[in-house]
């Protein structure tokens, strides 16, 4: 059973630095090199040096171990290192782990990172055709002989049921999510789709990938790296940048949870694991959905953005399509993974920090509270970030 009381992590740590490589389709360098570049950029941003770092966190999916990144980045002894599982679901949890280490005094300065050549190297979108007979492999294995092989197809299965249940048309319900992301990306020089907005008609006319998902419902694939520096809120105040305080951080897995194939439970119209995250974030922060200024919601595929809005209580079940169409909350102001880059959700955390610093290309005036979420369809995580003071 998930917690129903506030936790004691809220407000004790902050994100003090953000740094990324260029987001591209072919980085021309190793994943390790990308990780190191991102780590250095984040430390520079914070006004810290590799010598200040004593903790590192990444994803189990990352190919560059903490120790190797440390070795190549000029970082010395580590008293804390950790990796989170479940693909993009790890994103916000890397920050949570770092914050826990900082809050308990196990580490002072923790760098979290994710770097990959996901476009020029191993592309997730190309699908899976073989798995080892481990418990994890068997779970996914039920779908493989029938040709349900790609992330898009696993999301599409739940999306179809969601659209059916609420009587929604795929193009009308999902189009505004894609158009909003690309509108924001069009203003963002770091976005792959800079100056390339799309219309609802273009979304509706884009080719099928896995019905009901069209090409423009699917995020791009990216080479790049993103890193963040986490330290205590107190110390962050003395550093170069305005701190982004970790008001609340949570992980969540639902009952009968699977990785991308949670087809066998409940109604397939929501993301119960994100509900677990939402309850904990609201309880710890004492905030309500109406008090959030910006939502950075994981958008590898458009339908799960709608389900997240409903899980967090921004609107009722089946109402998120109208909520997005009416632009009732600034969403994915960097352009999201649909428009900026697919960095497994880590670039979204950086955008949350920029909003609190007032330096986003699509700045929401006086943004003081930002919700950031991690990978959907998998065990996941989320953050509420706040301006200091």
């Amino acid at each position, binding site marked *: 059973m998930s917690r129903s009381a506030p936790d004691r992590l809220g407000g004790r740590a902050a994100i003090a630095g953000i740094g990324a490589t260029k987001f591209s389709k072919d980085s021309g360098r190793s994943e390790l090199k990308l990780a190191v570049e991102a780590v250095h950029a984040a430390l520079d941003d914070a006004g810290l040096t590799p010598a200040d770092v004593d903790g590192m966190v990444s994803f189990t999916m990352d190919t560059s171990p903490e120790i190797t990144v440390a070795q190549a980045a000029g970082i010395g002894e580590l008293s804390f290192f950790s990796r989170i599982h479940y693909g993009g679901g790890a994103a916000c949890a890397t920050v949570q782990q770092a914050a826990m280490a900082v809050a308990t005094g196990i580490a002072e300065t923790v760098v979290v990172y994710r770097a990959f050549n996901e476009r020029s190297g191993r592309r997730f979108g190309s699908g899976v055709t073989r798995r080892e007979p481990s418990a994890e492999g068997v779970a996914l294995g039920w779908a493989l002989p029938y040709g349900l092989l790609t992330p898009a197809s696993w999301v599409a299965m739940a999306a179809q049921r969601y659209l059916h249940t609420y009587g929604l048309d795929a193009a009308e319900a999902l189009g505004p999510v894609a158009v909003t992301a690309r509108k924001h990306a069009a203003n963002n020089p770091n976005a792959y789709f800079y100056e390339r907005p799309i219309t609802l008609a273009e979304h509706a*006319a884009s080719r099928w990938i896995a019905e009901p998902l069209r090409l423009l419902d699917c995020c791009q694939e990216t080479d790049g790296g993103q890193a963040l520096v986490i330290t205590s809120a107190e110390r962050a105040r003395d550093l170069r940048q305005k701190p982004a305080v970790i008001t609340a951080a949570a992980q969540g897995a639902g009952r009968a949870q699977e990785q991308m194939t949670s087809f066998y439970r409940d109604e397939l119209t929501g993301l119960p694991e994100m509900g677990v995250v939402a309850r904990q974030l609201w309880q710890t922060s004492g905030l309500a959905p109406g008090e959030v200024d910006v939502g950075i919601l994981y958008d590898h595929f458009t339908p799960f953005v709608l389900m997240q809005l409903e899980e967090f209580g921004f609107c009722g079940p089946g109402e998120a399509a109208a909520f997005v169409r009416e632009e009732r909350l600034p969403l994915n102001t960097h352009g999201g993974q649909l428009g900026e880059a697919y960095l497994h959700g880590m670039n979204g955390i950086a955008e949350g920090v920029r909003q609190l610093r007032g330096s986003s290309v699509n700045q929401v005036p006086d943004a003081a509270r930002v919700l950031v979420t991690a990978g959907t369809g998998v065990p996941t995580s989320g953050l509420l970030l706040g301006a200091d003071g």
Partner: protein
Amino acid sequence: MSGETLPELRIPVTRKLIVGGAIATRDYQDVHHDAVAAKERGSPDIFMNILTTNGLVGRYVAECLGPGTQVWAVKIRLGVPQYPDDELVFTGEFTPGDDGTGQVSVVGRNRLGAHVTGTVTVVLAEEARE
């Protein structure tokens, strides 16, 4: 995110239009006039050339917004091919900008799906401005 919906334009696509359009645009690629050659290249029939499609997008905008409309820019992407003995149905949405300018988002569909999608940037003729 929403603009004014423009009227639909239905264009019957005959062999004559595809071949006539190809020649009027000085495009002598065999796939636009020679069905045998088109089949050898893996296409079931001749198909419309992009210059004709581009021109028909221009025609749609001229017919909806008036022939005096100045077209500043056209961006189109082709989807499914346009074969003969079909109908090309244009729909569009006009979003006004400043000083009589505007953007038209256009989709041309046939029975296979979207043949062309794009956006056209225009300046309305004086008499068409409100």
